């Protein structure tokens, strides 16, 4: 089987790039892969070359007939996925939908193309009743974009992409339920794969990062956005007042959201911004517990969550969307209502005071990542589904 695979890769700062660089070696066991990127960068990871041929996509030179299947990895980052969007319009294929809500992608497109008419007509086509109003909100740049609101799942703006797809791969049963209720095309669930645990030991990582043995290290990773619930987490930790607590937040904060939240408040947090893979692994080894809250949900699955679980970390997640499909003993699910802050406080306190609880939860998390989300298992599921959904003409 020969596959044309469209995905951004490093140095593009994207969870989807990391995801595919980890999956590729396993997927290469089942298929010959040509990996298509756009021409704006050179691959930052030489090892990707070992498992596939990297090509720069040019629509006029692309030959779909040379492949059994074309696979597109689609996400919200417009600059990283723009060429993928253009390609799938001309050459339909199997779409891996990493983000269910694609409002962000189209809003970035609006900003880049300055074409409000196209944006408006798209919204009106898929949401005849509310589309014009929603589009106008974006065009007028009113505060709180739709993807930060509870409305996001009602107006995902993924219809055009799904309409172009021959088949879909999603990462959770939750998303499959959302899609099969609205569209009729083959859909399968391949869970977000787990990761290899950090090669660092806890003591070594702490030493190298400058932490004490007594420190209780809490860790959050990933882009800093409003729906990561920092506005609940920070006051909760502040109220707890644990003297030995060190809360580390790793991830780009383009909107300076943390700075705004912390203004005038005595919050002891360690903001790290974007860090390299090696440093991230040190923090994952050094941490005692992790926070991975997301609300409102965009239907996404979190690569950073699977990384935490693979490292046997106890993790607090929001009780919403795909997170609800996770076993109740592999993660701690935090309600998204008025009790959110209270629940964060009491579970962080319980984890800080009880090493046995941390260890038990960490074991269950690692068990889930290992058994349900192994890289090899996920690659096999990809290969089976792609094989079953190759285009009829190509199959013959």
């Amino acid at each position, binding site marked *: 089987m020969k596959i044309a695979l469209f995905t951004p890769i490093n140095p593009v700062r994207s969870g989807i790039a990391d995801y595919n660089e980890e999956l590729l070696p396993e997927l290469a066991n089942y298929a010959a892969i040509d990996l298509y990127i756009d021409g704006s960068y050179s691959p930052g990871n030489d090892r990707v070359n070992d498992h596939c041929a990297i090509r720069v996509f040019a629509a006029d030179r692309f030959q779909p007939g040379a492949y059994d299947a074309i696979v597109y990895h689609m996400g919200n980052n417009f600059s990283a996925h723009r060429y993928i969007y253009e390609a799938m319009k001309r050459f339909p294929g199997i779409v891996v939908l990493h983000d269910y809500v694609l409002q962000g992608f189209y809003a970035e497109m609006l900003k880049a193309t300055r074409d409000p008419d196209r944006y408006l007509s798209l919204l009106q086509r898929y949401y005849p009743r*509310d589309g014009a109003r929603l589009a106008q909100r974006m065009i*007028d740049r*009113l*505060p*709180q974009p*739709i993807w930060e*609101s*509870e*409305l996001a799942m009602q107006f995902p703006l993924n219809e055009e992409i799904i309409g172009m797809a021959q088949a879909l791969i999603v990462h959770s049963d939750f998303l499959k339920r959302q899609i099969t209720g609205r569209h009729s095309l083959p859909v399968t669930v391949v869970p977000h794969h*787990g990761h*290899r*645990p950090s090669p660092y030991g806890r003591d070594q990582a702490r030493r190298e990062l400058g932490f004490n043995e007594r420190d209780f290290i809490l860790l959050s990773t990933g882009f800093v956005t409003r729906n990561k619930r920092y506005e609940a987490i920070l006051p909760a930790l502040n109220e707890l007042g644990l003297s030995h607590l060190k809360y580390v937040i790793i991830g780009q904060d383009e909107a300076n959201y943390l700075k705004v939240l912390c203004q005038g408040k005595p919050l002891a947090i360690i903001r790290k911004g974007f860090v390299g893979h090696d440093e991230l692994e040190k923090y994952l080894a050094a941490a005692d517990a992790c926070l991975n809250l997301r609300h409102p949900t965009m239907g996404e699955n979190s690569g950073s969550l699977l990384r935490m679980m*693979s490292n*046997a970390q106890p993790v607090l997640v929001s009780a919403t969307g795909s997170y609800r499909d996770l076993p*109740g*003993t592999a993660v*701690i699910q935090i309600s998204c*209502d*008025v*009790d959110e802050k*209270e*629940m964060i406080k*009491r*579970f962080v306190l*319980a984890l800080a005071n009880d090493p046995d*609880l941390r260890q*038990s*939860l960490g*074991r*269950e998390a*690692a*068990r889930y*990542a*290992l058994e349900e989300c*192994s890289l090899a298992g996920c690659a096999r599921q990809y290969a089976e589904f792609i094989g079953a959904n190759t285009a009829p003409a190509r199959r013959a």
Partner: protein
Amino acid sequence: MSQYRKLIPQPVKKSLSRVLSKIKSLPTDREHAIGTIAICGAQVPFSTGGAENLNEALRAQLQHRGHEVDLISIPFKWYPREQIANSMRIWQQLDLSEADGKKIDLLITTKFPSYMVHHGNKVLWLVHQYRQAYDLYETPVSGFDPRSRSDNKLRAMIIAADNKAIRSHRRIFTISKNVSRRLLKFNGIASTPLYHPPKLFPRYYHKNYGDFILSVSRLDKLKRVDGLIRALPACPRTMRCIIAGSGPELPKLRELASQYGVTDRVEFLGRVDDQRLLELYAECFAVYFAPYDEDYGYVTLEAFFAHKPVLTATDSGGTLEFVEHERNGFVVAPGNEQLLAEKIRLLFSDRSLCRSYGDAGHEQVKNISWDHVIQELLGPAK
């Protein structure tokens, strides 16, 4: 990952579940005793409406349950336009953390812009936002000019301030699904409708299904009492119609009754006292209440508490949260007096149908109580 395999085969699942649910079910801070409560409302001086009555009722109910309660009301003025922003600022700058050295444990905020006040423990029971900036925008009553830059700026500021202030509450309730729907539609904020009983609860009662249909409301255009009068000629001559309430439409309604030749069958009572109102509900065979887009609609609840069916319209808003067509009443298109008359005839000629629908209505509202409202506002036991 093989090193983890060694760690895994231990029977931790059951005890872990137990530990986690035990931690979850501990009482929360807000479930501890709340002593001092302030209810915040904005008021137009010399104008007392549903919101003010609601605040008074809430205060009485909280006091009755042993809480120390006070109403904090600040005048609201929406003209000239800058006054709206001033009113918002006044609430934003208030310090209600304590009063005379006494800590205020909880704020219950109600309508725009009272919910802009800062407090560490506040719950919203939303009566309404500044509707002119939302559902009434671009209608003649909005007062905003969509072509005016400064108007658009002010509107955007109101929406942004609402988004921030409403989200800062520990819990968000509204008085009805209609209000919740607007909040979700325009601000993307989910909320829970929390219904409260009508003013004379629990004194409503049922006596019989008499020979008259009842209309209770202020007599203004939006209440559309004229629809009932227009339907009367097609109703049995032995049937009477009693209209309780006063308002600017009264002279027109009298004239309409005369024009339709039904003066002898329509009785205009004007405002009636509580006792008389309870009797009217107890003795009518049905209640007509078909206003345009009502926020809540106390009359529906009053009718149902008295086991009476309700006739309403398809665009009556909050009323439709309770009235279900051919289950506890009838829902007809506004302006279709022939159909309305047909449904009235049906009920008048079949009192067992009145009973069946009236009982179903009672079933629908029987759990609406102040106990429930206060339990939710102060924090339910989970």
